[in-house]
């Protein structure tokens, strides 16, 4: 392997180049349009010192975690049922294919009317963002399963309930996992939208509200936080997949490293 192909080398080069470019932009357009790295760091420190940053990150994270977990827990059995029961599938598929094109953000105002301004509307929104992705992936997994697996289980005397528990769910696990992992991404998108429109806490609120003070550096801080939050939760989830779900054929990272 050449030295430039080493992971830490390529990652370092990428970051240094990005920061240089960023600094260059800041010099050209001025700090009010593009706050440079240093200025952003200062802004970040400000927000850390008065405690708002950690609080906002925590709030956004909890919202995502709760909505995403509840949404997934609801979606997995629904996906399994739709995948297994033909009659259900005939009715559910057109509906799924219609509603999945409506982005979560489009539901924000409606959810505010239905669930109020509090936490429920945000969690409902994230559940919505999670639900259809996980249902569709689970459904695909059930349909992709080989008939031979069901047949062999049946001829070895497994009951329908045992087949669901010991054959269908394990065989579908990689699909469920992928769905749940993708849903994490859409959950972040949904929460930021919701916090911008209808919240006075959270990272989305920070980004949206900073415009009032013309603090573009705080906006940058918010963007970085989102990037890191997504990155680390995805990594954590990837690690979980590799370690715990290895035997089900789950590949840990979206980009397979050789």
């Amino acid at each position: 392997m050449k030295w430039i192909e080493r992971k830490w080398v390529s990652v370092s080069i990428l970051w240094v180049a990005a920061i240089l470019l960023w600094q260059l932009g800041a010099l050209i357009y001025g700090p009010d349009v593009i706050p440079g790295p240093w200025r952003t760091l200062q802004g970040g420190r400000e927000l850390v010192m008065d405690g708002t940053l950690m609080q906002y990150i925590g709030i956004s994270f909890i919202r995502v975690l709760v909505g995403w977990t509840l949404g997934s827990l609801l979606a997995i059995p629904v996906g399994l049922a739709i995948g297994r029961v033909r009659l259900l599938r005939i009715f559910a598929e057109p509906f799924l294919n219609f509603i999945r094109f409506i982005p979560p953000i489009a539901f924000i105002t409606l959810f505010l009317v239905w669930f109020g301004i509090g936490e429920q509307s945000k969690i409902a929104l994230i559940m919505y963002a999670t639900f259809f992705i996980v249902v569709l992936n689970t459904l695909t997994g059930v349909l992709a399963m080989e008939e031979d697996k069901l047949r062999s289980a049946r001829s070895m005397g497994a009951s329908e309930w045992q087949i669901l528990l010991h054959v269908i769910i394990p065989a579908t696990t990689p699909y469920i996992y992928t769905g749940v992992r993708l849903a994490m991404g859409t959950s972040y998108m949904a929460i930021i939208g919701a916090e911008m429109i209808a919240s006075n806490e959270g990272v989305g609120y920070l980004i949206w509200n900073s415009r009032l003070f013309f603090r573009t550096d705080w906006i940058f801080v918010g963007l970085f936080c989102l990037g890191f939050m997504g990155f680390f939760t995805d990594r954590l989830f990837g690690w979980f997949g590799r370690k715990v779900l290895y035997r089900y054929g789950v590949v840990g990272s979206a980009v397979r490293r050789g």
Partner: protein
Amino acid sequence: MSLPAQQNTIHIEALRKSYNEQASGDVRYIIKDVNLVIKGGEFFILLGPSGCGKSTLLNIIAGFVSKSGGHLRIDDVEVKEPGKDRAVVFQQADSSLFPWLTVRENVEFGLRMKKTPKPERRRISDSFIGLVGLTGHENKFPKELSGGMKQRVQLARVLAGDPAILLMDEPFGALDAMTRRTMQKELIRIWRETNKTVIFVTHDIQEALLLGQRIGIMSVGPSSNITDIYDNPLSFPRDEASPEFGELYNQIQSHFAR
């Protein structure tokens, strides 16, 4: 625990299968007027060209596919669904084995479904893993095994359920010639040790002659049935270079050349 050879006789009378028998007009049969008696403990071969309905017949005997008419009885009991008296070894081990289970867990699957106590399960899986020559590979996953070894796992897995009848659908079709030869010898050894009834589907005349005591020839579909039955009195192990073998081979070969 093998049963007396006179038991588990399979009676097939005027069996037929169509996917549009209810439709008015042109009814197409996959198999029609199939009559056959297979004695307990016999090694029976279903030989015929691709697409002649061999697998359909096997799947009906397995209970996976329902018959359109006629009778299929095992010891005077009409067969309608899969049962633990019949076990199936599929052509594709990859689609029928459970990749999330180790070799041992695959072999113990049926026993676990029956809630056999763990020590008993262990004892049975040990003995059948030994019988198929996989001792030392118990903790490997199917993807770590070669094609031949996977078929050994399938064999051990079905034998662990102590079925009276083994239904084998071109189980060595996907193996290379050398592995196939080994597996054929192994199968004969295991059949003689366990005294099972075997119905073995193949389109390979040589394989049919190496394994079977009787060979049922299926005609080309549609509406195919068993046109001739050849006895193969040669003793095991069989020598494909012997003149008797060659004579039988030519006989069957000329049957298909007609």
